[in-house]
């Protein structure tokens, strides 16, 4: 009796499935519980990967609840690549679709923030633009186009996700208050730093990422967010080393 990997795999993910025929102990008796070693290894290692990937979600839900959710998740979404450091990409949507968790509406965005922190951690290294790259006339600043570090991430949310994240990772952090919060992640050296963006900041960065000048991006952003604070947003990017180049096209005279 031969055991194909398709057969092995099906029994691996379904604890109620029968152990495939053709797997035995040394006396040719059915493997039984011996097969469970593989079932456990897979479930435990993937659950552990989820704990490592989503420590704040784990803290918010409690370890036992997280174990239960991970058990469901890993069977619905087994990893599609051996790069376990990026496992869990489907977890935010999975959380959003769990009716039992609908009262915790912020969970999917917290999961997105934790994913983005990991992506930032493993992103390519880059060199920040020189400190004086934007020390030009105000007219030229408005004409500038920016390139960003691969480690920069922006997460938009209707929930106070930065405050929730801080409250669960830092001692003495203030209690979160209900308001929308977009988060900028920068990685000045090797540790990603999440910071709340002023309202409009995420939209402004998104416009810049499509190639708009600082001025054009500002006009589009201010049309929707009249009190958009460009100075604070730009300072967060500069301090985080998130701007890798500044290009200013001057008209030929």
């Amino acid at each position, binding site marked *: 009796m031969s055991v194909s990997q398709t057969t092995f795999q099906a029994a*691996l993910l379904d604890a109620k499935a029968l152990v495939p025929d053709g797997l035995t102990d040394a006396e040719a008796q059915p493997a*039984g*519980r011996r097969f469970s070693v593989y079932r456990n290894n897979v479930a435990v290692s993937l659950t552990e*990967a989820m704990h490592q990937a989503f420590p704040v979600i784990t803290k918010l839900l409690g370890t036992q609840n997280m174990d239960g959710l991970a058990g469901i998740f890993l069977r619905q979404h087994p990893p*599609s690549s051996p790069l376990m450091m990026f496992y869990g990409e489907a977890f935010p949507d999975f959380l959003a679709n769990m009716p039992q968790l609908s009262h915790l509406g912020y969970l999917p965005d917290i999961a997105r923030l934790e994913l983005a922190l990991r992506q930032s951690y493993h992103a390519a290294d880059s060199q920040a633009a020189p400190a004086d790259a934007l020390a030009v006339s105000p007219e030229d600043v408005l004409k500038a186009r920016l390139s960003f570090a691969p480690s920069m991430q922006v997460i938009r949310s209707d929930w106070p996700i930065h405050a929730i994240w801080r409250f669960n990772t830092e001692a003495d952090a203030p209690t979160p208050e209900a308001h929308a919060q977009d988060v900028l992640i920068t990685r000045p050296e090797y540790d990603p730093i999440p910071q709340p963006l002023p309202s409009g900041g995420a939209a402004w960065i998104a416009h810049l990422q499509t190639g708009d000048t600082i001025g054009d991006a500002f006009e589009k952003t201010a049309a929707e967010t009249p009190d958009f604070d460009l100075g604070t947003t730009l300072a967060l990017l500069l301090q985080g080393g998130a701007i890798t180049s500044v290009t200013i096209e001057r008209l030929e005279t």
Partner: protein
Amino acid sequence: MLDDALRSNRLPAAPGVGYKPQHFAQILEQAQPVAWLEIHAENYMGDGGRPLAQLRHLSEDFPISVHGVGLSIGGEGPLDPDHLTRLKHLISWLKPASFSEHLAWSTHDTHFFNDLLPLPYTDATLARVCAHIDQVQDTVGRQMLLENPSSYLAFEESTWSEPDFLREISQRTGCGLLLDVNNVFVSATNLDFSPQGYIDAYPLEKVGEIHLGGHDEDEDDHGHPLLIDSHGREVVDPVWTLLDYVLDRSGPKPVLVEWDTDVPDWPVLRAEAERAQVALDRVPA
């Protein structure tokens, strides 16, 4: 064609340990009884950041062994071309002293299970594993070492013994072997064979590296001991004794201590490396 300069394994016949980032500072701050370090390839396939910076730093002071855990050499389907490309990239910039993978499968239908799953030892498996190893060695341009698994069950359909199977793979592909002595002990206990008999039948002349690690103890449905290769504790005395048995026959080899779960503080792992040095010191060069 394999690049001759990179072909041979360049690990010293001395103790090494599996590198864990929490030990970075202590490994570098003083002279260690550790002559080389092993990394899991997949943990260093990101684009940048601290993991790669630490690896670049360590590789200036230590020979590095790249140990893959995700290639699925025994998979029924084709090898993942993206993963092969990542492996080639890592090996080409790091130029490690050794590269190894497992006689196992972990990916099927694009699902990766993050475990080393077992293979039947048949002519069909042999042909497939050899084709995959040829492809890997051609792609990365150097010899690989193939590690024996820890077994919890047997396949009725198997027609080869594991040592003969590994010898045949090595002869057909030119790959070297990584002998995991703990895995031999675990499999021998679980499947009722003599670990010394396994070593006697095993082609020790092909060994480029030896692994040691801790295991857990359990039982099967019939109360038979079932050892589990957990890498979460000290190497047990009978495994050290089996290491002596191997080294008496093979001569000195690079010996690695693996500790992957419940990773201890550095002094505990260093003590395991010191014990490996004692085992190596017994053996005439």
